[in-house]
């Protein structure tokens, strides 16, 4: 098969001798790296550990943020069960991803969440009461008083990915050292929006990082029915950009890898896709019953690997954390959550006519009659 002579007839006139070395050859090949720093029993698996691994204050901040999100989540579900909140999407078991993202991003960066990134949103200054307002049926919950440029929760799967590309393009055009961070679920990687976004991000080398919260279930669909791809990170390869896997329950590994990706984006070294492997310990939303499609055994197994217990073990082993600290933190977080719930429950509904208030910069005169009708001023003709 090798080194065969081939005769090619061109235009019926010339014979050209071609040296054909092989019929097929390896053009290029790719690898996907998996990153972990602390195993599920809280033991370091790399040596030496990065500096942050012995920075007590910073570690405790990460821990606090995870625990606070979990307590918020629990409270939100109980509000929903009592009829005080609409359908709610929990982030149980996936807190480490949001915490790492929110801890690394700078204020001037822009976050594009899906709907399980409360941890990141809280660290960026979104109020707990705002998240409750959103799921409680009030658009004011998307009018963040904190991060003014952050996008709100995105329900249509993967549709926020092209927005992140547009924002990153604007940042690059203006020569700003800002970064767009887009978070998506595992199901999102099957959608064209995701591919179109990572492809364009690669084309223009944009300052954007895509983080896949691979919680193994897209509502009911497990990954092996979502795709034949062995990893979701490898989808980055098709777009010509960096892709890697991280233990999504290991807040330290997430911190280091996301920090690297965001730094790369910020200094113009291009976009990255990070697949964070975690597990959805909750139902899809409060309107879902995961026992229809997932075994109790699988659920219980995955509680072994969840991020908060693991990090607690690490902190305890390092002598940074005690039961007393834990108790104090829980009391403090619960107080914070309760006051957010109080603020939420005491926020008045918007006026009926508010549905017209932000439809356009200025309401077209042809719509004034409808607005008046809602206000009871006039019967709609």
């Amino acid at each position: 098969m090798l080194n065969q002579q081939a005769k090619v007839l061109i235009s019926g006139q010339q014979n050209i001798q071609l040296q054909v070395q092989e019929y097929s050859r390896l053009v290029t090949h790719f690898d996907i790296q998996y990153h972990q720093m602390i195993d599920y029993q809280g033991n370091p698996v790399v040596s030496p550990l990065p500096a942050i691994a012995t920075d007590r204050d910073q570690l405790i901040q990460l821990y606090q943020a995870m625990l606070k999100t979990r307590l918020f989540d629990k409270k939100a579900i109980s509000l929903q069960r009592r009829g005080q909140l609409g359908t709610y999407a929990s982030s149980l078991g996936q807190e480490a991803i949001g915490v790492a993202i929110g801890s690394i991003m700078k204020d001037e960066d822009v976050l594009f969440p899906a709907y399980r990134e409360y941890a990141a949103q809280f660290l960026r200054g979104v109020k707990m009461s705002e998240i409750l307002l959103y799921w409680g049926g009030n658009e004011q919950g998307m009018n963040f008083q904190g991060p003014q440029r952050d996008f709100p929760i995105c329900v249509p799967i993967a549709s926020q990915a092209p927005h992140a590309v547009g924002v990153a393009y604007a940042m690059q055009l203006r020569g700003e050292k800002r970064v767009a961070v887009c978070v998506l679920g595992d199901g999102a990687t099957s959608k064209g929006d995701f591919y179109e976004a990572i492809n364009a991000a690669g084309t223009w080398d944009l300052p954007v990082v895509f983080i896949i919260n691979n919680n193994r279930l897209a509502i009911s669909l497990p990954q092996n029915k979502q795709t034949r791809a062995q990893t979701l990170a490898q989808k980055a390869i098709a777009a010509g950009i960096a892709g890697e896997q991280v233990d999504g329950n290991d807040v330290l590994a997430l911190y280091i890898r996301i920090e690297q990706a965001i730094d790369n984006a910020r200094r113009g070294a291009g976009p990255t896709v990070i697949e964070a492997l975690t597990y959805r310990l909750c139902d899809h939303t409060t309107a879902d019953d995961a026992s229809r499609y997932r075994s109790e055994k699988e659920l219980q197994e995955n509680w072994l690997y969840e991020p908060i217990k693991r990090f607690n073990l690490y902190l305890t082993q390092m002598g940074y954390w005690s039961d007393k600290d834990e108790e104090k933190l829980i009391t403090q977080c619960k107080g914070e959550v309760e006051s957010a719930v109080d603020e939420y429950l005491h926020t008045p509904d918007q006026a009926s006519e508010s549905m017209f208030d932000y439809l356009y910069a200025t309401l077209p005169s042809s719509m004034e009659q409808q607005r008046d009708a809602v206000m009871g001023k006039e019967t709609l003709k």
Partner: protein
Amino acid sequence: MTEVTLLDAINMGLCWEMSADPSVVVLGEDIGLNGGVFRATDGLQEKFGQQRVIDTPLSETLIAGMSIGMAAEGLKPVAEIQFMGFIYSTIDQIISHASRLRNRTRGRLSCPLVLRAPFGGGIHAPEHHSESTEALFAHIPGLRVVIPSSPGRAYGLLLAAIRDPDPVIFLEPKRIYRLVKQDIEDNGEALPLDVCFVLREGSDVTLVSWGAMIHETMTAAEQLSASGINAEVIDLATIKPLDINTILESVSKTGRCVIIHEAARTCGVGAEIAAQLAEQGLMSLFAPIERVTGYDTIMPLFNLEKEYMPSVERIIAAVERTLEDL
């Protein structure tokens, strides 16, 4: 004053606004180096550079979605979808995000983008290149849908669309891209959105149309005038929000209304105009409202496109029906 085609006017409008406002960017497929498949963006990349005149990958969802991001971040993107037949991939982005970003964030973020697309039949184009589906967008709260019908209105309305703080779907009637020339002043003056233009005054019947069909409608009006029928012609121009007042005012004078559009009949924009006339102007009407439209069929391939599209004869026949009771 320069005598230009509708296509030239689009190019001039883009050029003016890119010069005047550094936040304006133009993006789409083949729009840079190639100047667009119709040449609407010809010369812009040379003048304003590759960063502001952006050749995108072949990704319509991306084009719409990234425009939303750009707009929210303070740019003023003017995106081209090569043909309206390829606009449907953008609909999720337009409906789920562009139209409602201001509303869902209570004004914190907004979406001042323009999505341009050539539309309509009559140029013997291949399959998927000839539909008129403006009504899909006209149904969506939070959008503006604007359709010019002359070089002057293309220039003025495009400038207005780019300067508008909300998303505008700007549909260009490609059949008349090069059909007529008009003297226009390249002075950066915008025309008002959200209002109709009365192109011809008359007392016997009101003809309402938009886009390329304005030309059949004006021809019909001229032929009717030869037989003593005075038609008033209104160019809708902004399809949404609808300026019903100008139409009501006209119908209160003429008592008759014929609506002409190339798009399919059922749930077309004509249906909305007729409904609003029935609600608010019934007492002015001497005759039932007539619609002259494309049929409720798939737009045929070009051998039959003439049969599909409203003709001067069909418009005149409809007008005559409204006058039968006299």
